[in-house]
């Protein structure tokens, strides 16, 4: 499964109670009441565990995490970046 589909499945199962009809790639999570502050932290935990990354505090930002599209862009940057020696 591609990262987009994995994250979508996680969001739908955990925050939309299985109803995926409203979640588009550019749906803004916060503005649409999909997640709150603890929800964001759950999402961060999921991304760290599933993709083996460390989400820095400064990266917990709307540009990185507020939609499926933003998350995919963030994951691409994160996973594509060369690992520190």
């Amino acid at each position, binding site marked *: 499964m591609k990262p987009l589909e994995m994250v979508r499945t996680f969001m739908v199962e955990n925050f939309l109670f299985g109803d995926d009809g409203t979640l588009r790639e550019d749906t803004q999570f916060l503005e649409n009441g999909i997640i709150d502050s*603890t929800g964001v932290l759950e999402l961060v935990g999921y991304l760290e565990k599933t993709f083996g990354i460390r989400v820095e505090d400064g990266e917990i*930002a*709307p540009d990185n995490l507020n939609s499926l599209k933003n998350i995919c862009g963030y994951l691409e940057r994160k996973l594509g970046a060369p690992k520190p020696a």
Partner: protein
Amino acid sequence: MTALVHDLLRVSAERYPDRIAVVCGNRRVPYSRLQQRATDLSERLVASGLAPGERVLVLLENSPEYLVTYFSVLRAGGVVVPVAHDANERGLGRIVADCTPSVVIGRGEQLRAREWTLGDAVSVRTIVDVDSMEFDRRRRGGGALRGAGRRPVDAETNQLALILYTSGTSGRPKGVMLTRRNLLSNAASIVEYLKLTYEDRVMVVLPFRYSYGNSLLTTHVLAGGCLVLENRFAFPNVVLDRMQEEEVTGFAGVPSTFAILLNRSSLRTRVFPALRYVTQAGGAMSPTLARELKEALPETDVFIMYGQTEAAPRLTYLEPAELLRRPGSIGKAIPGVRITLRDEEGIPVRPGEIGEIVAEGDNIMAGYWNSPQETAAVLKNGCLYTGDLGRADEDGFLYVVGRRSEMIKTGGHRISPKEMEHTLAAMPGVAEAAVVGVPDAILGQAIKVFIAPTVGKAVQAADVLRFCSENFEAFLVPKEIVFLDELPKSANGKVDRSALKGDPPA
């Protein structure tokens, strides 16, 4: 003191017409404009038939429109009933059925999405979209005739201003009735001890529909200060950016707000030269977290405060200078409030003893809407029985030791789980701890401890027992210790004790 709540806005608009009352995104609304919009909406509400004492359901998130609506309804003599703009149908339906609003005010899509719930409610005559200022008349009747020519002001300060629904655990919603006097007296008292002036600018991340958020609104409008609204606390660094850009002088949060800021934001690496104070209320914050907060903001006063929605909401505060000297204290009664600690018969306890926190003052609610029995259980002779147990130190500083219903009685000893939890949380390798009483044939109740270890740390039951025997009296050493990855929490982030008592699988 100003006699009427809506006068708070009128007076500040006269004194500071050009000062900014509210900032929201790119919008900056001066007092004069806010007052004008509130007056316009108020007159239209009266013209549409809103009679004094009628409830107005407000379905708005924090926004300039929330303030416009709030003051317009009060000016028209109505009662503001704020609910979450994204409330679910079931919760909303229960509140509508309980308070029978005649008017609903919301905006755009959020309003339309809930139209079937609201449109079906028999009591609702008018639905107002505050963006378009469209009035959708559903039913005839109400005070249309009374409205014509009636002055839109009712000078009775004991008149109801606000009903705040609290998240009761039982199925039925509990509406706390606050009068105009309640709101004014509490706002004036808070302005006094926080020394708020027209130069203060507070970052608001707490919803206005909660009593703590509501008090930010009333106090800053009273002082002529500025409310900087930011509804994206889920991304804490966005809020910190805004605090720096807007040079806010104040910030208000609940314990989880500060836990998130200290653990998942760049708070510690930033400086806030304008930030004069932060306030914490909305549940007990551990002294460890309070100390970390002070260390992160060394130049800022940290006010620990205590209250209840039923007290509009503030009851006590701790002077910032005492923060590190009296860890865990909620301080002393605010101006205009009297606090006593009483035993189960309602008699004041002796110094040093634990008793229920009982409060008197102009801020104590009128009761619970439609619930005389629940009201009688907490309001006695004008006093509010908070259900919280406290004790005072030799200088009169108060400490909350737990809820009356949560106290553990073991072998004749009365034990506060919260005090034990605070101590256990300081044990190396322990992230969180919870203490509950479980039935015991000999002791009545025995102490059971739940420990969530810090990630990557191994803590053994023997370590916990050793720590307990070193730090507690013998009767406090737990009979049982359970390790969990994480403690179960309720929706509002508090440890769910009832789930723990049900002994969840580790």
